[in-house]
């Protein structure tokens, strides 16, 4: 049953995503992609639990590397998107 419940969330999120992103103008498509990079770093919150568990060394190493990589995405993605968006100026 929990699988169906997760599937429901997935389905709603995809439709919501389509509706929102269709409204993003072409001029902002590059910041949209780098912003998406940052959001996909959300994997971080899944990896934290493994990185903090000392019971299994291999899982801890995998989790920690994952935390490291996902943080690059989060910090790098948001910062570079901000840098770009700051340049979009009106007349």
């Amino acid at each position, binding site marked *: 049953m929990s699988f169906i419940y997760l599937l429901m969330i997935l389905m709603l999120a995809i439709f919501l995503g389509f509706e929102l992103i269709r409204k993003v103008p072409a001029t902002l498509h590059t910041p949209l*992609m780098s912003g998406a990079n940052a959001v996909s770093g*959300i*994997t971080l919150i899944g990896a934290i639990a493994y990185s903090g568990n000392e019971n299994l060394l291999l899982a801890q190493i995998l989790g*920690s590397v994952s935390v490291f990589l996902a943080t*690059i995405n989060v*910090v790098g993605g948001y*910062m570079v998107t901000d840098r770009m968006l700051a340049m979009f100026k009106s007349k």
Partner: protein
Amino acid sequence: MLNTELIINAVYVLSAALFILGLKLLSHPSTARRGNKLSAIGMLVAICVTLSDQNILAYEWIIVAIVAGSAVGAFIAKKVQLTEMPEMVSLLNGVGGLASLLVALAMLETDTAIDSYLAVIVLLAIAIGGITFSGSVVAWAKLSGKVAKLISSGSTVFSGQAFVNAFIVIAIFVLGALVVIYPQTANSTVYVYSFVALCIILGVMLVIPIGGADMPVVISLLNSYSGLAACAAGMALNNNLLIVAGALVGASGIILTSVMCKAMNRSLINVLFSGFQTVKTTEIKIEGEVKPLAADDAYYVLEAAQSVVVIPGYGMAVAQAQHSMKELQVLLEENGAEVVYGIHPVAGRMPGHMNVLLAEADVPYELLLEMDEVNARMTNFDVAIVIGANDVVNPAAREIEGSPIYGMPIINADLAKNVFILKRGMASGFAGIENPLFFKDNARMIFGDAKDTINTIIRQFAD
């Protein structure tokens, strides 16, 4: 439900709302920056609350990993040149894919009594993550041209490639089935890591046959995959926020992919497998002759012009001509002319590439018009200046039925009263097709480096 778990999930709802609001504000350049900040706050809140998870026994490794990742991320974000954004996005796509792959592996290592439904989803996360990772690394290599000897920026095809790919896909399915059916046998580790290796190889095989001109599609698609990998990891970990955020990223990439495909009048399948088709050489003779023009003479036409449209392409990025162009734009405006920019969806190496470069040069976003807008009034422009663009202004798409790009929507630069084409030489574009625009009566070629040419015209204005 434990108390902390309840709090964590409640905060995740807030984070999801902030991500969605952030995307909504991205619908206009004036609110976009605020949207990005909201999204970042959502992420920060989610990370902080996750740290209170009761399964965490020690914080040393987490802190080291987060600090190191932040340092690397901040360094890249500060140092990257905006012309290199396609490379950066490509690399981040790959990093995201790898992160999801590793989480899924960590889950397999921890959870030995995994049931088959969960095993399928974990393998799915590994497969998407692996393909995203290696595919993005190849795309990055093609874009940066750093490993040109190893991976050509064009398409790489060897005989029997389709056969090899089919074999890899079958092997992936067989290994996946073995992992699901025999999760606890001694061999299962071997199966899992072979599965990982094959998915990584598949990612390489899928991207090497795709040529440089199709990179906007590939980057968009891999962007989508990096989200879907996070989504699959979320399904496995039973984490709502991972699913919502991953789905938003997945949807974004899919929309951009379809925008790019439409702008090239091709299907996704056609783009992904185009390297396998034999190139058709069209034997169409173009009548007329190329008329070169000196930059000095271009000045007299521009000086008299009332309205000018600038059509940039990847060549503008290569020549770094956007700053000079902005200078020329100001001079033209002071001279009483209207200047706008016409931007084709696939100009450059990624969606929106030209817009970012022009924004960097302080060109106001109101002047950046989309293809349809600029085409509607093309016949009224006195001068169209084409800077380093080729295929996106090729009238063969409209006129020559046998042409490989026939039917592709283009910016109709040839319909303007005068067309100046700033170009290094007569080489054809990525599509490798002759461009009849160069032979039109109203077209003049200004050969040389685009930046030098524009600077020459600027000097004429100053005198």
